[in-house]
Protein backbone atom coordinates (compact mmCIF):
# COMPACT_ATOMS: atom_id res chain seq x y z
CA UNK A 1 0.00 0.00 0.00
CA UNK A 2 1.30 3.41 -0.86
CA UNK A 3 0.75 6.59 1.16
CA UNK A 4 -2.11 7.76 -1.06
CA UNK A 5 -3.99 4.60 -0.26
CA UNK A 6 -3.30 4.86 3.40
CA UNK A 7 -4.64 8.42 3.35
CA UNK A 8 -7.85 7.48 1.54
CA UNK A 9 -9.97 6.59 4.60
CA UNK A 10 -8.99 9.84 6.24
CA UNK A 11 -9.95 11.76 3.13
CA UNK A 12 -13.35 10.12 3.20
CA UNK A 13 -13.79 10.73 6.86
CA UNK A 14 -12.33 14.21 7.09
CA UNK A 15 -15.23 16.44 5.95
CA UNK A 16 -17.72 14.78 8.29
CA UNK A 17 -15.20 14.68 11.11
CA UNK A 18 -14.31 18.34 10.76
CA UNK A 19 -17.94 19.41 10.85
CA UNK A 20 -18.73 17.23 13.82
CA UNK A 21 -15.70 18.50 15.69
CA UNK A 22 -16.48 22.15 14.99
CA UNK A 23 -20.19 22.00 15.58
CA UNK A 24 -20.63 19.19 18.10
CA UNK A 25 -17.54 18.23 20.04
CA UNK A 26 -16.05 21.68 20.42
CA UNK A 27 -19.37 23.16 21.55
CA UNK A 28 -19.76 20.35 24.07
CA UNK A 29 -16.33 21.08 25.48
CA UNK A 30 -17.11 24.78 25.45
CA UNK A 31 -20.24 24.05 27.42
CA UNK A 32 -18.42 22.02 30.06
CA UNK A 33 -15.97 24.90 30.42
CA UNK A 34 -18.82 27.41 30.57
CA UNK A 35 -20.61 25.47 33.26
CA UNK A 36 -17.94 26.52 35.73
CA UNK A 37 -18.47 30.19 34.99
CA UNK A 38 -20.85 32.97 35.81
CA UNK A 39 -22.01 33.73 32.32
CA UNK A 40 -24.80 35.88 30.93
CA UNK A 41 -25.86 36.13 27.30
CA UNK A 42 -24.41 39.60 26.84
CA UNK A 43 -20.88 38.35 27.60
CA UNK A 44 -18.40 36.41 25.54
CA UNK A 45 -17.20 33.37 27.45
CA UNK A 46 -13.73 34.83 27.83
CA UNK A 47 -15.11 37.80 29.77
CA UNK A 48 -16.76 35.62 32.39
CA UNK A 49 -15.74 34.87 35.93
CA UNK A 50 -14.73 31.42 37.16
CA UNK A 51 -17.02 30.22 39.93
CA UNK A 52 -15.94 26.61 40.39
CA UNK A 53 -18.70 24.16 41.12
CA UNK A 54 -21.13 26.85 42.22
CA UNK A 55 -23.56 26.29 39.33
CA UNK A 56 -23.66 22.55 39.94
CA UNK A 57 -24.13 22.90 43.67
CA UNK A 58 -26.81 25.54 43.47
CA UNK A 59 -28.67 23.39 40.95
CA UNK A 60 -28.41 20.40 43.20
CA UNK A 61 -30.06 22.41 45.96
CA UNK A 62 -32.58 24.03 43.65
CA UNK A 63 -36.03 22.58 44.30
CA UNK A 64 -37.26 23.76 40.93
CA UNK A 65 -34.51 21.92 39.08
CA UNK A 66 -35.10 18.75 41.06
CA UNK A 67 -38.77 18.99 40.33
CA UNK A 68 -38.17 19.34 36.63
CA UNK A 69 -35.81 16.39 36.79
CA UNK A 70 -38.61 14.43 38.39
CA UNK A 71 -41.03 15.57 35.72
CA UNK A 72 -38.58 14.49 33.03
CA UNK A 73 -38.13 11.04 34.50
CA UNK A 74 -41.86 10.57 35.01
CA UNK A 75 -42.57 11.76 31.52
CA UNK A 76 -39.93 9.58 29.90
CA UNK A 77 -40.74 6.39 31.77
CA UNK A 78 -44.50 6.64 31.48
CA UNK A 79 -44.31 7.46 27.79
CA UNK A 80 -41.97 4.64 26.95
CA UNK A 81 -43.76 2.15 29.14
CA UNK A 82 -47.16 2.87 27.61
CA UNK A 83 -45.76 3.01 24.11
CA UNK A 84 -44.01 -0.33 24.51
CA UNK A 85 -47.13 -2.06 25.77
CA UNK A 86 -49.40 -0.54 23.17
CA UNK A 87 -46.94 -0.85 20.31
CA UNK A 88 -45.99 -4.45 20.98
CA UNK A 89 -49.57 -5.39 21.76
CA UNK A 90 -50.77 -3.98 18.49
CA UNK A 91 -47.94 -5.63 16.61
CA UNK A 92 -48.85 -9.03 18.06
CA UNK A 93 -52.50 -8.47 17.24
CA UNK A 94 -51.92 -7.29 13.73
CA UNK A 95 -49.09 -9.61 12.77
CA UNK A 96 -50.96 -11.18 9.90
CA UNK A 97 -51.36 -10.53 6.26
CA UNK A 98 -54.43 -8.37 6.29
CA UNK A 99 -55.62 -6.20 3.50
CA UNK A 100 -55.09 -2.61 4.51
CA UNK A 101 -51.98 -3.28 6.59
CA UNK A 102 -49.72 -1.27 4.33
CA UNK A 103 -52.19 1.60 4.39
CA UNK A 104 -52.19 1.44 8.16
CA UNK A 105 -48.43 1.44 8.32
CA UNK A 106 -48.19 4.44 6.02
CA UNK A 107 -50.78 6.44 7.90
CA UNK A 108 -49.29 5.37 11.20
CA UNK A 109 -45.97 7.00 10.36
CA UNK A 110 -47.60 10.37 9.74
CA UNK A 111 -47.61 11.52 13.38
CA UNK A 112 -43.87 10.92 13.64
CA UNK A 113 -43.05 12.86 10.53
CA UNK A 114 -45.01 15.98 11.35
CA UNK A 115 -43.17 18.81 13.07
CA UNK A 116 -43.31 18.63 16.86
CA UNK A 117 -44.48 22.22 16.98
CA UNK A 118 -47.45 21.27 14.81
CA UNK A 119 -48.20 18.25 16.97
CA UNK A 120 -48.14 20.48 20.03
CA UNK A 121 -50.43 22.90 18.31
CA UNK A 122 -52.95 20.23 17.34
CA UNK A 123 -53.11 18.86 20.83
CA UNK A 124 -53.25 22.25 22.43
CA UNK A 125 -56.32 22.87 20.36
CA UNK A 126 -57.90 19.52 21.10
CA UNK A 127 -57.25 19.93 24.83
CA UNK A 128 -58.59 23.47 24.91
CA UNK A 129 -60.97 23.68 27.88
CA UNK A 130 -63.88 25.14 25.94
CA UNK A 131 -63.12 25.18 22.24
CA UNK A 132 -61.26 21.88 22.24
CA UNK A 133 -62.45 18.68 20.68
CA UNK A 134 -62.21 16.45 23.73
CA UNK A 135 -64.23 18.60 26.07
CA UNK A 136 -66.83 19.15 23.36
CA UNK A 137 -67.24 15.41 23.02
CA UNK A 138 -67.39 14.91 26.74
CA UNK A 139 -69.94 17.64 27.14
CA UNK A 140 -72.12 16.38 24.33
CA UNK A 141 -72.02 13.02 26.10
CA UNK A 142 -73.21 14.78 29.22
CA UNK A 143 -69.94 14.45 31.13
CA UNK A 144 -68.13 17.37 32.67
CA UNK A 145 -65.10 18.52 30.73
CA UNK A 146 -61.66 17.58 31.97
CA UNK A 147 -59.13 20.22 32.83
CA UNK A 148 -56.59 18.74 30.44
CA UNK A 149 -53.77 21.22 30.38
CA UNK A 150 -54.52 22.53 33.85
CA UNK A 151 -54.67 19.97 36.63
CA UNK A 152 -53.84 17.03 34.37
CA UNK A 153 -51.18 18.67 32.26
CA UNK A 154 -48.49 16.02 32.63
CA UNK A 155 -50.89 13.23 31.74
CA UNK A 156 -52.06 15.22 28.74
CA UNK A 157 -48.60 15.76 27.33
CA UNK A 158 -47.82 12.09 27.90
CA UNK A 159 -50.91 11.15 25.90
CA UNK A 160 -49.79 13.39 23.07
CA UNK A 161 -46.37 11.77 23.06
CA UNK A 162 -47.93 8.32 23.07
CA UNK A 163 -50.01 9.32 20.06
CA UNK A 164 -46.94 10.46 18.22
CA UNK A 165 -44.53 7.65 19.06
CA UNK A 166 -46.45 4.42 19.62
CA UNK A 167 -46.34 3.82 15.86
CA UNK A 168 -42.54 3.83 16.04
CA UNK A 169 -42.52 0.93 18.43
CA UNK A 170 -45.36 -0.76 16.60
CA UNK A 171 -43.51 -0.73 13.31
CA UNK A 172 -40.24 -1.93 14.76
CA UNK A 173 -41.98 -4.63 16.76
CA UNK A 174 -43.85 -5.72 13.66
CA UNK A 175 -40.63 -5.89 11.68
CA UNK A 176 -39.05 -7.94 14.43
CA UNK A 177 -42.03 -10.28 14.56
CA UNK A 178 -41.99 -10.85 10.85
CA UNK A 179 -38.32 -11.70 10.84
CA UNK A 180 -38.64 -14.36 13.54
CA UNK A 181 -37.49 -17.79 12.40
CA UNK A 182 -40.64 -19.41 11.04
CA UNK A 183 -39.30 -22.88 11.71
CA UNK A 184 -39.26 -22.29 15.46
CA UNK A 185 -42.84 -21.05 15.42
CA UNK A 186 -44.02 -23.94 13.27
CA UNK A 187 -42.30 -26.43 15.53
CA UNK A 188 -43.95 -24.99 18.62
CA UNK A 189 -47.32 -25.02 16.90
CA UNK A 190 -46.95 -28.66 15.92
CA UNK A 191 -46.14 -29.39 19.55
CA UNK A 192 -49.59 -28.01 20.33
CA UNK A 193 -48.72 -24.64 21.82
CA UNK A 194 -51.62 -22.21 22.17
CA UNK A 195 -51.21 -18.75 20.73
CA UNK A 196 -50.72 -17.32 24.22
CA UNK A 197 -47.94 -19.81 24.88
CA UNK A 198 -46.47 -18.93 21.50
CA UNK A 199 -46.41 -15.27 22.41
CA UNK A 200 -45.06 -15.71 25.93
CA UNK A 201 -42.50 -18.40 25.38
CA UNK A 202 -41.32 -17.89 21.85
CA UNK A 203 -42.24 -14.61 20.22
CA UNK A 204 -41.56 -12.23 23.10
CA UNK A 205 -38.24 -13.78 24.17
CA UNK A 206 -37.03 -13.79 20.58
CA UNK A 207 -38.11 -10.18 20.06
CA UNK A 208 -36.57 -9.05 23.33
CA UNK A 209 -33.26 -7.76 22.01
CA UNK A 210 -35.00 -5.57 19.47
CA UNK A 211 -37.57 -4.43 21.98
CA UNK A 212 -35.04 -3.45 24.57
CA UNK A 213 -32.99 -1.48 22.11
CA UNK A 214 -36.11 0.16 20.72
CA UNK A 215 -37.31 1.00 24.19
CA UNK A 216 -34.00 2.51 25.18
CA UNK A 217 -33.85 4.48 21.96
CA UNK A 218 -37.29 5.86 22.72
CA UNK A 219 -36.22 6.60 26.26
CA UNK A 220 -33.28 8.61 25.04
CA UNK A 221 -35.56 10.40 22.60
CA UNK A 222 -38.07 11.10 25.34
CA UNK A 223 -35.39 13.14 27.09
CA UNK A 224 -35.06 15.21 23.97
CA UNK A 225 -38.73 16.14 23.72
CA UNK A 226 -39.17 19.84 24.06
CA UNK A 227 -41.12 21.49 21.31
CA UNK A 228 -44.37 19.62 21.80
CA UNK A 229 -44.46 20.58 25.46
CA UNK A 230 -43.31 24.11 24.78
CA UNK A 231 -46.20 24.71 22.44
CA UNK A 232 -48.77 22.91 24.56
CA UNK A 233 -48.07 24.20 28.05
CA UNK A 234 -44.80 26.14 28.11
CA UNK A 235 -43.91 24.01 31.12
CA UNK A 236 -46.89 24.96 33.23
CA UNK A 237 -48.99 25.01 35.20
CA UNK A 238 -46.50 25.51 37.97
CA UNK A 239 -43.57 23.37 36.97
CA UNK A 240 -45.76 20.38 36.31
CA UNK A 241 -44.64 19.84 32.72
CA UNK A 242 -41.32 21.63 32.78
CA UNK A 243 -38.94 18.95 31.57
CA UNK A 244 -35.22 19.56 31.92
CA UNK A 245 -34.75 20.43 28.25
CA UNK A 246 -37.33 23.16 28.61
CA UNK A 247 -35.79 24.39 31.81
CA UNK A 248 -32.40 24.63 30.12
CA UNK A 249 -33.87 26.76 27.42
CA UNK A 250 -35.72 28.96 29.92
CA UNK A 251 -32.66 29.36 32.11
CA UNK A 252 -30.63 30.42 29.13
CA UNK A 253 -33.11 32.76 27.52
CA UNK A 254 -35.45 33.95 30.23
CA UNK A 255 -33.24 33.99 33.35
CA UNK A 256 -30.15 34.76 31.29
CA UNK A 257 -27.91 32.41 33.26
CA UNK A 258 -25.90 30.57 30.65
CA UNK A 259 -23.50 29.06 33.17
CA UNK A 260 -26.33 27.46 35.11
CA UNK A 261 -27.98 26.29 31.91
CA UNK A 262 -24.69 24.70 30.86
CA UNK A 263 -24.39 22.89 34.17
CA UNK A 264 -27.95 21.68 33.79
CA UNK A 265 -27.15 20.44 30.30
CA UNK A 266 -24.27 18.48 31.76
CA UNK A 267 -26.50 16.80 34.30
CA UNK A 268 -28.81 15.82 31.47
CA UNK A 269 -25.91 14.55 29.39
CA UNK A 270 -24.69 12.35 32.21
CA UNK A 271 -28.12 10.74 32.53
CA UNK A 272 -28.25 10.12 28.81
CA UNK A 273 -24.74 8.76 28.77
CA UNK A 274 -25.69 6.25 31.43
CA UNK A 275 -28.76 5.23 29.45
CA UNK A 276 -26.71 4.81 26.31
CA UNK A 277 -24.22 2.62 28.13
CA UNK A 278 -27.05 0.52 29.51
CA UNK A 279 -28.39 0.20 25.99
CA UNK A 280 -25.08 -1.01 24.60
CA UNK A 281 -24.55 -3.54 27.32
CA UNK A 282 -28.08 -4.83 27.08
CA UNK A 283 -28.07 -5.17 23.34
CA UNK A 284 -24.77 -7.10 23.43
CA UNK A 285 -25.94 -9.47 26.14
CA UNK A 286 -29.32 -9.98 24.57
CA UNK A 287 -27.91 -10.60 21.15
CA UNK A 288 -25.73 -13.36 22.47
CA UNK A 289 -28.57 -14.86 24.44
CA UNK A 290 -31.00 -14.69 21.54
CA UNK A 291 -28.56 -16.38 19.26
CA UNK A 292 -28.19 -19.18 21.75
CA UNK A 293 -31.94 -19.48 22.20
CA UNK A 294 -32.56 -19.56 18.48
CA UNK A 295 -29.93 -22.20 18.04
CA UNK A 296 -31.39 -24.31 20.81
CA UNK A 297 -34.87 -24.13 19.33
CA UNK A 298 -33.58 -25.04 15.94
CA UNK A 299 -31.68 -27.96 17.36
CA UNK A 300 -34.71 -29.16 19.27
CA UNK A 301 -36.89 -29.12 16.21
Amino acid sequence: MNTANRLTPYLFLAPAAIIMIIALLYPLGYMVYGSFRDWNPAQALSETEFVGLKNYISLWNDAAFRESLGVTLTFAFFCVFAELILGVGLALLLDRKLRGMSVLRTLFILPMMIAPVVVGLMWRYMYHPTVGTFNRWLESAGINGIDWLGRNALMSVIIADIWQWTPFIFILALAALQSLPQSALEAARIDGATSWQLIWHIKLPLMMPVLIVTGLLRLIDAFKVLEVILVMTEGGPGLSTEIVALRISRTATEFRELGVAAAMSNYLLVILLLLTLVMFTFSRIQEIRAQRAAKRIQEES
Partner: protein
Amino acid sequence: MLDKHPNPAFYPLLAALIFMAVGPIVLMLANSFKLDVDIISGTSGLIFLPTIQNYETALCDILWYKPDHLDFCQLKFGGSFINSIIIALISTVLTLVLGAMAAYALVRFRFLGRDTASLTTLLVRMVPPAVLLVPVFGLWNNDFCIGKNTSFGEFLRNIFGGRGDVCLEGTHSGIILIYVAMNLPFVIWILQSFILQVPRSLEEAAKVDGAGTFQVFFKIVLPLIQPGIAAAAIFTFRIAWNEYLLASALADRDTKTVPILLVNNVSEFNIEWGVIMATGMLLAIPPIIFTLFASRQIITGMTAGAVKG
Protein backbone atom coordinates in the same frame (compact mmCIF):
# COMPACT_ATOMS: atom_id res chain seq x y z
CA MET B 1 -48.21 -17.19 7.85
CA LEU B 2 -51.22 -16.29 5.77
CA ASP B 3 -54.52 -15.71 7.43
CA LYS B 4 -57.17 -16.81 5.00
CA HIS B 5 -60.00 -15.94 7.35
CA PRO B 6 -59.00 -13.13 9.61
CA ASN B 7 -61.26 -12.39 12.51
CA PRO B 8 -63.75 -9.79 11.26
CA ALA B 9 -63.07 -7.79 14.42
CA PHE B 10 -59.69 -6.85 13.01
CA TYR B 11 -61.11 -4.51 10.43
CA PRO B 12 -62.92 -2.30 12.92
CA LEU B 13 -59.71 -2.28 14.96
CA LEU B 14 -57.73 -1.24 11.90
CA ALA B 15 -60.25 1.48 11.15
CA ALA B 16 -60.12 2.73 14.73
CA LEU B 17 -56.32 2.86 14.64
CA ILE B 18 -56.31 4.72 11.37
CA PHE B 19 -58.86 7.13 12.75
CA MET B 20 -56.73 7.77 15.81
CA ALA B 21 -53.56 8.28 13.82
CA VAL B 22 -55.04 10.55 11.22
CA GLY B 23 -57.91 12.15 13.13
CA PRO B 24 -55.98 15.05 14.65
CA ILE B 25 -54.39 15.83 11.31
CA VAL B 26 -57.72 15.83 9.51
CA LEU B 27 -59.16 17.97 12.27
CA MET B 28 -56.42 20.49 11.78
CA LEU B 29 -56.95 20.46 8.05
CA ALA B 30 -60.66 21.05 8.52
CA ASN B 31 -60.10 23.87 11.00
CA SER B 32 -57.63 25.56 8.71
CA PHE B 33 -60.55 26.14 6.34
CA LYS B 34 -62.81 27.59 9.02
CA LEU B 35 -63.19 31.12 10.26
CA ASP B 36 -62.19 31.73 13.86
CA VAL B 37 -65.78 32.45 14.74
CA ASP B 38 -66.74 28.97 13.56
CA ILE B 39 -63.87 27.31 15.39
CA ILE B 40 -64.69 29.02 18.67
CA SER B 41 -68.45 28.82 18.53
CA GLY B 42 -68.15 25.16 17.65
CA THR B 43 -70.39 24.84 14.64
CA SER B 44 -69.51 21.29 14.96
CA GLY B 45 -67.67 18.79 12.90
CA LEU B 46 -67.33 18.85 9.18
CA ILE B 47 -70.35 20.87 8.21
CA PHE B 48 -69.14 24.37 7.56
CA LEU B 49 -68.57 26.78 4.74
CA PRO B 50 -64.91 26.33 3.81
CA THR B 51 -62.90 29.48 3.33
CA ILE B 52 -59.36 29.99 2.16
CA GLN B 53 -59.13 33.21 4.12
CA ASN B 54 -56.71 31.70 6.66
CA TYR B 55 -54.36 30.61 3.92
CA GLU B 56 -54.59 34.06 2.37
CA THR B 57 -53.60 35.60 5.69
CA ALA B 58 -50.70 33.19 6.10
CA LEU B 59 -49.43 33.61 2.58
CA CYS B 60 -50.11 37.34 2.22
CA ASP B 61 -46.52 38.23 1.42
CA ILE B 62 -46.31 36.02 -1.63
CA LEU B 63 -49.81 36.41 -2.99
CA TRP B 64 -50.14 38.38 -6.19
CA TYR B 65 -53.27 40.11 -4.94
CA LYS B 66 -54.15 41.78 -1.67
CA PRO B 67 -56.76 39.87 0.33
CA ASP B 68 -59.74 42.04 1.26
CA HIS B 69 -59.82 41.10 4.91
CA LEU B 70 -56.28 42.26 5.66
CA ASP B 71 -55.17 45.80 6.44
CA PHE B 72 -51.52 44.91 6.18
CA CYS B 73 -49.49 41.79 5.87
CA GLN B 74 -48.25 40.78 9.28
CA LEU B 75 -47.45 37.11 8.94
CA LYS B 76 -44.60 36.78 6.49
CA PHE B 77 -44.95 33.10 5.82
CA GLY B 78 -43.51 33.16 2.31
CA GLY B 79 -40.11 34.41 3.41
CA SER B 80 -39.86 31.84 6.18
CA PHE B 81 -40.95 29.12 3.85
CA ILE B 82 -38.10 29.97 1.49
CA ASN B 83 -35.67 30.01 4.43
CA SER B 84 -36.92 26.63 5.55
CA ILE B 85 -36.51 25.18 2.08
CA ILE B 86 -32.99 26.55 1.65
CA ILE B 87 -31.90 25.34 5.06
CA ALA B 88 -33.55 21.93 4.89
CA LEU B 89 -32.41 21.11 1.36
CA ILE B 90 -28.81 22.23 1.66
CA SER B 91 -28.32 20.61 5.02
CA THR B 92 -29.88 17.37 3.78
CA VAL B 93 -27.65 17.16 0.73
CA LEU B 94 -24.53 18.02 2.69
CA THR B 95 -25.32 15.56 5.43
CA LEU B 96 -25.91 12.76 2.96
CA VAL B 97 -22.75 13.28 0.94
CA LEU B 98 -20.49 13.71 3.94
CA GLY B 99 -22.27 10.99 5.90
CA ALA B 100 -22.04 8.46 3.08
CA MET B 101 -18.35 9.15 2.64
CA ALA B 102 -17.66 8.77 6.33
CA ALA B 103 -19.75 5.62 6.55
CA TYR B 104 -17.85 4.16 3.62
CA ALA B 105 -14.54 4.88 5.32
CA LEU B 106 -15.72 3.27 8.55
CA VAL B 107 -17.01 0.14 6.84
CA ARG B 108 -14.46 -0.53 4.15
CA PHE B 109 -11.16 0.52 5.64
CA ARG B 110 -9.19 -0.45 8.68
CA PHE B 111 -7.22 2.51 9.91
CA LEU B 112 -5.86 4.09 13.02
CA GLY B 113 -8.61 5.86 14.96
CA ARG B 114 -11.42 3.93 13.30
CA ASP B 115 -12.83 2.61 16.55
CA THR B 116 -12.64 6.01 18.21
CA ALA B 117 -14.43 7.62 15.28
CA SER B 118 -17.08 4.95 15.28
CA LEU B 119 -17.67 5.14 19.02
CA THR B 120 -17.80 8.94 19.03
CA THR B 121 -20.38 8.86 16.29
CA LEU B 122 -22.50 6.53 18.34
CA LEU B 123 -22.22 8.56 21.50
CA VAL B 124 -23.00 11.96 20.06
CA ARG B 125 -26.22 10.55 18.66
CA MET B 126 -27.82 10.84 22.05
CA VAL B 127 -27.02 14.53 22.56
CA PRO B 128 -30.32 16.43 22.78
CA PRO B 129 -30.62 19.71 20.88
CA ALA B 130 -31.42 21.47 24.15
CA VAL B 131 -27.94 20.62 25.40
CA LEU B 132 -26.42 22.26 22.35
CA LEU B 133 -28.45 25.41 22.89
CA VAL B 134 -26.08 27.16 25.27
CA PRO B 135 -22.77 26.49 23.56
CA VAL B 136 -24.11 27.01 20.07
CA PHE B 137 -25.67 30.26 21.12
CA GLY B 138 -22.40 31.44 22.64
CA LEU B 139 -20.10 30.24 19.89
CA TRP B 140 -22.20 31.28 16.92
CA ASN B 141 -22.66 34.76 18.39
CA ASN B 142 -19.24 35.52 19.76
CA ASP B 143 -16.56 33.14 18.57
CA PHE B 144 -17.45 31.98 15.09
CA CYS B 145 -17.12 35.45 13.66
CA ILE B 146 -15.12 37.29 11.09
CA GLY B 147 -14.09 40.77 12.14
CA LYS B 148 -15.83 43.44 10.14
CA ASN B 149 -12.51 45.17 9.59
CA THR B 150 -10.85 42.21 7.94
CA SER B 151 -11.00 42.25 4.19
CA PHE B 152 -13.19 39.17 3.95
CA GLY B 153 -15.53 40.55 6.60
CA GLU B 154 -15.82 43.79 4.68
CA PHE B 155 -16.46 41.87 1.52
CA LEU B 156 -19.32 39.96 3.14
CA ARG B 157 -20.82 43.09 4.64
CA ASN B 158 -20.72 44.77 1.24
CA ILE B 159 -22.56 41.93 -0.38
CA PHE B 160 -25.05 41.00 2.28
CA GLY B 161 -25.39 44.24 4.20
CA GLY B 162 -26.03 44.22 7.91
CA ARG B 163 -23.83 45.62 10.65
CA GLY B 164 -21.21 44.57 13.13
CA ASP B 165 -18.88 41.62 12.92
CA VAL B 166 -19.92 38.89 10.56
CA CYS B 167 -21.00 36.03 12.78
CA LEU B 168 -22.60 32.69 12.04
CA GLU B 169 -25.60 33.73 14.09
CA GLY B 170 -28.42 34.97 11.93
CA THR B 171 -27.14 33.35 8.75
CA HIS B 172 -28.47 30.39 6.84
CA SER B 173 -25.00 28.83 7.01
CA GLY B 174 -25.03 28.96 10.79
CA ILE B 175 -28.23 26.98 11.01
CA ILE B 176 -27.18 24.60 8.25
CA LEU B 177 -23.88 23.87 10.02
CA ILE B 178 -25.53 22.78 13.24
CA TYR B 179 -28.14 20.72 11.41
CA VAL B 180 -25.50 18.90 9.39
CA ALA B 181 -23.50 18.19 12.52
CA MET B 182 -26.57 17.02 14.41
CA ASN B 183 -27.71 14.66 11.67
CA LEU B 184 -24.36 13.22 10.65
CA PRO B 185 -24.10 10.61 13.40
CA PHE B 186 -27.47 9.15 12.54
CA VAL B 187 -26.82 9.15 8.79
CA ILE B 188 -23.40 7.58 9.19
CA TRP B 189 -24.93 4.94 11.38
CA ILE B 190 -27.72 3.82 9.10
CA LEU B 191 -25.68 4.05 5.93
CA GLN B 192 -23.06 1.73 7.41
CA SER B 193 -25.49 -1.14 7.43
CA PHE B 194 -26.39 -0.50 3.80
CA ILE B 195 -22.80 -0.25 2.67
CA LEU B 196 -22.04 -3.55 4.40
CA GLN B 197 -24.52 -5.19 2.05
CA VAL B 198 -22.82 -3.97 -1.10
CA PRO B 199 -20.96 -6.98 -2.51
CA ARG B 200 -17.23 -6.41 -2.29
CA SER B 201 -16.72 -8.22 -5.56
CA LEU B 202 -18.37 -5.39 -7.47
CA GLU B 203 -15.96 -2.88 -6.00
CA GLU B 204 -13.00 -5.13 -6.64
CA ALA B 205 -14.06 -5.57 -10.25
CA ALA B 206 -14.27 -1.86 -10.77
CA LYS B 207 -10.87 -1.40 -9.21
CA VAL B 208 -9.41 -3.97 -11.56
CA ASP B 209 -10.85 -1.92 -14.40
CA GLY B 210 -8.74 0.95 -13.15
CA ALA B 211 -11.24 3.01 -11.16
CA GLY B 212 -9.89 4.96 -8.19
CA THR B 213 -11.40 4.76 -4.74
CA PHE B 214 -13.44 7.93 -5.22
CA GLN B 215 -14.78 6.68 -8.52
CA VAL B 216 -15.70 3.36 -6.97
CA PHE B 217 -17.50 5.18 -4.21
CA PHE B 218 -19.46 7.59 -6.38
CA LYS B 219 -20.13 5.33 -9.35
CA ILE B 220 -20.62 1.91 -7.73
CA VAL B 221 -21.37 2.23 -4.06
CA LEU B 222 -23.62 5.28 -4.01
CA PRO B 223 -26.06 4.00 -6.65
CA LEU B 224 -26.27 0.65 -4.88
CA ILE B 225 -27.20 2.10 -1.52
CA GLN B 226 -29.92 4.32 -2.92
CA PRO B 227 -32.67 2.91 -0.67
CA GLY B 228 -30.51 3.71 2.34
CA ILE B 229 -29.79 7.18 1.02
CA ALA B 230 -33.49 7.76 0.46
CA ALA B 231 -34.32 6.70 3.99
CA ALA B 232 -31.53 8.80 5.46
CA ALA B 233 -32.58 11.76 3.33
CA ILE B 234 -36.11 11.68 4.64
CA PHE B 235 -34.99 11.54 8.25
CA THR B 236 -32.47 14.31 7.83
CA PHE B 237 -34.95 16.47 6.00
CA ARG B 238 -37.52 15.82 8.67
CA ILE B 239 -35.26 17.14 11.40
CA ALA B 240 -33.98 20.11 9.44
CA TRP B 241 -37.49 21.04 8.36
CA ASN B 242 -39.15 20.64 11.73
CA GLU B 243 -36.51 21.79 14.19
CA TYR B 244 -37.42 24.79 16.31
CA LEU B 245 -35.20 25.29 19.34
CA LEU B 246 -31.77 25.85 17.80
CA ALA B 247 -33.17 27.71 14.84
CA SER B 248 -34.95 30.09 17.17
CA ALA B 249 -31.72 30.79 18.99
CA LEU B 250 -29.75 31.32 15.79
CA ALA B 251 -32.10 32.88 13.27
CA ASP B 252 -32.62 36.59 12.96
CA ARG B 253 -35.49 38.35 11.27
CA ASP B 254 -34.32 37.46 7.78
CA THR B 255 -33.54 33.81 8.39
CA LYS B 256 -36.57 32.74 10.41
CA THR B 257 -37.84 29.30 9.54
CA VAL B 258 -41.47 28.22 9.52
CA PRO B 259 -41.48 26.48 12.95
CA ILE B 260 -40.27 29.72 14.53
CA LEU B 261 -43.04 31.64 12.85
CA LEU B 262 -45.53 29.12 14.09
CA VAL B 263 -44.39 29.16 17.70
CA ASN B 264 -44.21 32.95 17.66
CA ASN B 265 -47.81 33.09 16.65
CA VAL B 266 -49.07 30.48 19.07
CA SER B 267 -47.79 32.41 22.04
CA GLU B 268 -49.18 35.57 20.62
CA PHE B 269 -51.69 37.86 22.20
CA ASN B 270 -54.75 36.74 20.31
CA ILE B 271 -54.55 33.17 19.21
CA GLU B 272 -56.02 33.15 15.76
CA TRP B 273 -56.67 29.45 15.57
CA GLY B 274 -57.63 29.39 11.92
CA VAL B 275 -54.52 31.13 10.68
CA ILE B 276 -52.25 29.10 12.93
CA MET B 277 -53.80 25.85 11.79
CA ALA B 278 -53.31 26.95 8.21
CA THR B 279 -49.66 27.75 8.90
CA GLY B 280 -49.27 24.42 10.66
CA MET B 281 -50.80 22.61 7.71
CA LEU B 282 -48.43 24.34 5.31
CA LEU B 283 -45.52 23.27 7.50
CA ALA B 284 -46.82 19.71 7.72
CA ILE B 285 -47.54 19.22 4.03
CA PRO B 286 -44.02 18.40 2.78
CA PRO B 287 -43.44 15.68 5.40
CA ILE B 288 -46.92 14.31 4.77
CA ILE B 289 -46.21 14.05 1.06
CA PHE B 290 -42.93 12.29 1.72
CA THR B 291 -44.64 9.85 4.01
CA LEU B 292 -47.35 8.99 1.54
CA PHE B 293 -44.91 8.41 -1.30
CA ALA B 294 -41.96 6.92 0.50
CA SER B 295 -43.35 5.09 3.48
CA ARG B 296 -41.38 1.99 2.56
CA GLN B 297 -38.07 3.84 2.67
CA ILE B 298 -39.02 5.38 5.99
CA ILE B 299 -39.74 2.00 7.49
CA THR B 300 -36.49 0.63 6.10
CA GLY B 301 -34.65 3.55 7.61
CA MET B 302 -36.32 3.14 10.96
CA THR B 303 -35.55 -0.53 11.19
CA ALA B 304 -32.00 -0.09 9.97
CA GLY B 305 -31.41 2.79 12.35
CA ALA B 306 -32.90 1.22 15.42
CA VAL B 307 -32.52 -2.49 15.18
CA LYS B 308 -28.84 -2.33 14.45
CA GLY B 309 -28.44 0.26 17.22
